[in-house]
């Protein structure tokens, strides 16, 4: 905003198919305004081409259609440091139609339009197409996390898991027999949601978000993805581990838990495993995930 703005490092935000929540979150973080020159971000700036002298490229949204794929491959050629932000860019997100091929086929047959960008069979993560230097998961990442990624990615340390920031007490002697479901009228705001039978995956979800959901009484759905303990492993390792966590803290029958873990609202978490639902992608190094 100052007159010497033009000397600042330039950065761009490439918006693929997503909800713009990541961009809205970035706008709420103000500390970058006088440290970077935002030269491309269609939501905010009326420039239709990415300049070729940018230092940092943020990519939000997943690859839903062939135009997304083209824009992505073209944009990364122009830049050294590429950051994938948000659950859609990292996993395809909530929009990859789950792992149900039948749903995808119906969808594609209904949706085709001859003169519009061609839809792919699902929403692909950006690293299926290009190399990524840093991943910033979250749906969306909080403004604080954006600041960490933009200003100090080496120095910024996120809490290991959501529990570390949740503030609820874990108890040894409170073991529910079944999953509580969704009713929260009798919820105790001070006690761990797992102790109260809620399907909360904060124990294995990367922290740094300050636990806004569990603090507000809603179980963590894992939008920040697997913690460092799991990020380089396969999804089956996590499945076994979360079973053990619930065995230790509850008396919920394993079959009941197993079914619940596959519920759609955990898809944002599960799809961040590189192998989940036939992902077959390279495993992401924990050093690259903020």
């Amino acid at each position, binding site marked *: *905003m100052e007159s010497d*703005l033009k000397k600042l490092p330039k950065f761009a935000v490439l918006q693929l*198919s*997503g*909800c*713009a*929540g990541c*961009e*809205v*979150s970035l*706008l*709420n973080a*103000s500390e970058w*305004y006088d440290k970077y020159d*935002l030269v491309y971000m*269609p*939501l*905010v*700036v*009326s*420039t*239709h081409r990415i300049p070729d002298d940018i230092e940092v490229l943020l990519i939000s949204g997943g690859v*839903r*259609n062939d*135009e997304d794929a083209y824009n992505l491959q073209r944009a990364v050629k122009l830049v050294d440091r590429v950051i994938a932000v948000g659950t859609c860019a990292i996993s395809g*997100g*909530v*929009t990859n*139609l*789950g792992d*149900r091929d039948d*749903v995808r086929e119906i*969808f594609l047959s*209904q*949706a085709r*339009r001859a*003169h*519009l*960008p061609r*839809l792919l069979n699902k*929403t692909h993560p950006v690293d299926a197409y290009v190399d990524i230097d840093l991943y910033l998961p979250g*749906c*969306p990442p909080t403004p604080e996390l954006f600041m960490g990624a933009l200003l100090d990615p080496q120095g910024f340390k996120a809490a290991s898991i959501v529990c570390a920031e949740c503030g609820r007490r874990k108890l040894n002697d409170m073991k529910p027999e079944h999953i509580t*479901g*969704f*009713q*929260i*009228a009798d*919820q105790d*705001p001070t006690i761990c949601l797992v102790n109260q039978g809620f399907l909360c995956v904060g124990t294995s979800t990367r922290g740094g978000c300050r636990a*806004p*959901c569990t*603090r*507000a*009484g*809603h179980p963590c*759905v894992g939008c920040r993805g697997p913690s460092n303990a799991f990020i380089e492993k396969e999804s089956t390792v996590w499945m076994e581990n979360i079973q053990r966590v619930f065995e230790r803290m509850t008396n919920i029958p394993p079959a009941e838990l197993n079914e619940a873990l596959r*519920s*759609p*609202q955990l898809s944002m978490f599960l799809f961040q495993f590189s192998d989940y639902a036939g992902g077959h992608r390279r495993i992401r190094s924990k050093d690259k995930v903020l």
Partner: protein
Amino acid sequence: MTTLTFPLSRIEGHARVVMEEENGKLLTAQFQAVELRGFRNFVVGTPAEQMPVIVPRICGVCSTAHHVASVKAVEKVFEVTPPPLACQIREILLLGQLIQNQATSLFIFTMPDRVGVESLFDMDESEAARKAQFSIAQQALRVRKLGTDIISLAGGQFIHPVKAHIGGVTGGISREAADKMLEDLRRMLPVACELFNAYWDMSVAMKERIGTWGDDEPTYYISSTMSLKPKLNSGHMRVLSPDGEEKEHFTPEEFEKRLEFTQTEYSYAGQTSYQGHILRANSLARINITSAFQTPLADSYLERFRASFGSPAHAILCFDLCRGIELVYAIERVMELLADNLEHGETEVGYTPRDGIGYGLVEAPRGPLIHRYVVENGLITDAQFIIPTVHNMKAIERALMVAGNRYIHPGTINLELEKAVGRVVRAFDPCISCATQ
């Protein structure tokens, strides 16, 4: 024949305008939404109780409206009525979103058009901003953030909130937190007014330059707000005729009988009409339906607006001025609501899950939003999202024809058309993520 393609920016989502002209005569103007993710399909099979967490992801700009509409739709299926305190907190949530959205549309999306810069961040270098003698960009972003702070307070987080819950909300708002927010609101209300005054002046100057407020023929209007003290956590839809008469009002359950939906081959978004007529939703529709806000500053702006444009007003750029009036109203109204006790009292009632069909209606910043769910064995078997931007599609295209005819002539196309396309589209503040899902 020449085909002109205009990429769009400073709107939510991916869209473009395509015009075809022949011998200086404009043949067509299409508004093409080019993205589609497929929420309607992939939520099939989802437990109904998970919808309020999943569907806000339709749109990060409008997530609060989807969150509340979703909760209300499931409540209708389960036949549960939330307590009054919960309804009041939901109203605060929706007002917070209105503040965030109108500030974004006014200052980030449309103000750069008024002074001819590419973004808000270039604003302070403009002549108009120097006259204002304060940093427009910094103040504008502060006002916008105020809206997100209100959503965080009432919704847990400001994008994809979680606190509205089937049967109520997950908690009240403490006196201490409410007082702290009130302090911010008191400080920011004059800032918002100052910005809006500057915006109004810039709009008048732009009108002088381009010679029009965006004249188009009168249309029908649709909103779910009432004429006095508009409520966003609404229950009925209203249709206003072009001469300002209320044609009818109806419940969300009746929308299929009253509105017609069509798909087009050139866009992933559909279009709505009312008995074959063009409709408009969003700020201008609400203002045309409002007789009084019953908050002092908003009513004084409304008076000024009516003195200039009459009632009902129809010019396209009136949408933008109406957003400013609503920004002021929403701040004043949240202040009234936060003064009440929101800490003690029942925030949530229990429920028994049932199967059935449910409709959830709220007034989103862009107009009335309906979620319609069919639930069998606790799972969604069909979901429809009735999106306000879709109600505006035909109106956008007609306004683009008007703009096109102004700048396309035999032998010449005035490149002011490119700017006019941006101004027209942004006046409607379309949301493409929502319109296509």
